[in-house]
């Protein structure tokens, strides 16, 4: 099931990806969005580059095997960037929902047959699974940012003092595995 609609979508990979990329940039100011879109050098524009590459991989999973590990890997660079930017969590994952609208605009919102309705439902369900995975990735990134905030000072300065035996009495010795 799913071949007909999925094949039609896959055939329009480039224009659909272009629309999806534009939609993903909507949370940014206009000047920023045009920079992210136009500058193609991956080292001069890592945000644009990783967003574009990530969407390509997501697209291929959406109409392909929908391997959740591959989906998570594709989501990671996009959400990792968004987790440290100004976007709210909702704004950060919104681009995934937006693909539903792009599809409805391109292929029509009302399915003409029960089979088409089933395919559309399947497609929307896949996008929903991507959104759920995106929440997980986003939260994992936020948690990592918080951990870095909490641990950086300890790992840098405190550990140097600790190694030198300048800060901690012997009886408070922590287990070896601590914090490494």
């Amino acid at each position, binding site marked *: 099931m799913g071949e007909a609609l999925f094949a039609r979508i896959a055939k329009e990979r480039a224009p659909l990806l272009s629309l999806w990329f534009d*939609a993903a940039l*909507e*949370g*940014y*100011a*206009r*000047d*920023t969005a045009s*920079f*992210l879109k136009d*500058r193609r*050098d*991956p*080292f*001069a*524009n*890592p*945000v644009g*580059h*990783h967003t574009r590459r990530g969407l390509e991989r997501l697209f291929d999973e959406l109409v392909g095997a929908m391997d959740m590990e591959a989906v998570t890997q594709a989501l990671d660079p996009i959400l*990792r*960037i968004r987790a*440290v*930017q*100004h976007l709210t969590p909702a704004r950060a994952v*919104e681009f995934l929902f*937006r693909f539903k*609208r792009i599809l*409805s605009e391109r292929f029509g*919102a009302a399915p003409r047959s029960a089979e088409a309705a089933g395919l559309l439902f399947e497609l929307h369900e896949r996008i929903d699974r991507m959104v759920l995975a995106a929440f997980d990735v986003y939260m994992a*990134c936020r948690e*990592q*940012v918080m951990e*870095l*905030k909490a641990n*950086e*000072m300890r*790992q*840098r*300065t405190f*550990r*140097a*003092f600790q*190694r*030198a*035996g*300048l800060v901690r009495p012997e009886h408070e010795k922590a287990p070896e595995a601590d914090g490494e």
Partner: protein
Amino acid sequence: MAEAKPTPQDVLHRIQHTPPRSDWMETPVEIRKGMYCYAANPKSVATLGLPHPHAWNPVEDDWHLPENWQQILHEGFKERLERFRSFKVFMDICVRCGACADKCHYFIGTGDPKNMPVLRAELLRSVYRNDFSRMGRLLGKVNGARPMSFEVLREWWYYLFQCSECRRCSLFCPYGIDTAEITIMGRELLNLLGLNIDWIATPVANCYMNGNHLGIQPHAFKDMIDFFVDDIEEKTGVRVKPRFMEKGADILFITPSGDVFADPGTYTAMGYLMLFHYLEEKYGLKVTWSTYASEGGNFGFFTSHETMKRLNAKMYAEAKRLKVKWILGGECGHMWRVIHQYMDTMNGPADFLEVPVNPITGTRFEQARSTKMVHLVEFTADLIHHGKLDLDPRRNDYLKVTFHDSCNPSRGMGFFEEPRYVIRNVCNHFYEMPANTIREQTFCCGSGAGLNAGENMELRLAGGLPRANAVQHVHRKYGVNMLACICAIDRAALPALMDYWVPGVQVTGVHELVANALNLPGQNERTTNLRGEEFEELMAQAEGQSDEG
């Protein structure tokens, strides 16, 4: 007739996803958590005798400013325009061509248009036009002018502390406008109102009172070095004997205190100690450390010209007192910008010192003939070039190294080849990052100019993205697992950046690599590196990884 009920499709299509477009002056600043550093502790501001020490909180509506704060800023602005011709020129000549707009790592990473260098400068220029240009006064907003207000002040503060003064933008400006200089002036003006950040103000006060940014007192400084001595003995079987405040030593060595107190810089500090021991054993060179001049960095540079001068003077006072011939400086970033570009005007010429000559090779460091201060990496490069070091780079064979050009040595003094020359002589596997991310085009670590606090981690991670992205490229392409640098802020800031963006890449100073390769007279078999990791295991791991690759 009742209006037709809208379909879900109609409703959906009415939703606007694009943020409303407004002129930058009309877009209010939102001081966002994770992007700003905490306000300066008033005690630190008072210690330095800087104006208007007071408690305040950037996210509150009342910053407890002096009543005449606008007048203070206006007069401060005027004074600096008269004093610094470059500032006046930079205020006047920008034609807003946009060449700099997408070159700032903070803009690239955060996507905030006010981090475009041109807009950051416009923050000051808009007030400059209003206060000091007739056209600006007449035409107001049409001419890009606006009066100083509390909203503008908030914007200044937020964005002037989102610039690491790295000068990448200036490289692309057809007029050579140095936005770093504009940030420097802007921060000076903010300091007139007591509006520094604590990550700068307290280190400066510490350095002023105790000799180093961390406020470590002399005995603790010596204790840490003594600990390194024990550690080196454990790993090499050789007990090095550092000198402290020794009058008549050949050279005074000064490095950022971060090398002595923060991992992984501590391993770089061990590298310094081993190199000096080697040079004394082999060639009789006497290098002394000082607990008084125990800070190579200079956060005064991020406060005001006067504060920078006061901290810088300690180095030279100590060199004079100890009657050394010249000063050798450790692996630091902004320290070298201060030495190379400002020191001579502020505290120079240091004519009580000798023009630096490497007594082992006879090389005369002409570029340092006035400042009398040589970068350790060029000193080591000179030693290697003359075959004066006994090196076994195979001990670093488990490493695939890339080099991050720190902004200040690279763009501030054109220091590109020496660190690469040293690394290539102590490591067998070296890989460059893409050309538009290194040398003069290097991307900042995202934490320079006093912005390596913990509370602004989002800013640091977003600003460090362009650098991390280039590291990720060589990590994936060549299996790079070590990022070398010659700056203490880099060593402090890059590990978190790598953890977030490129896990699997560690950070090192160049002299940690040198020391691991250096054969000390009388050493044992050397089974571990300076981090205490077994070479055998590291090599086996590396072989496993390249087999997988």
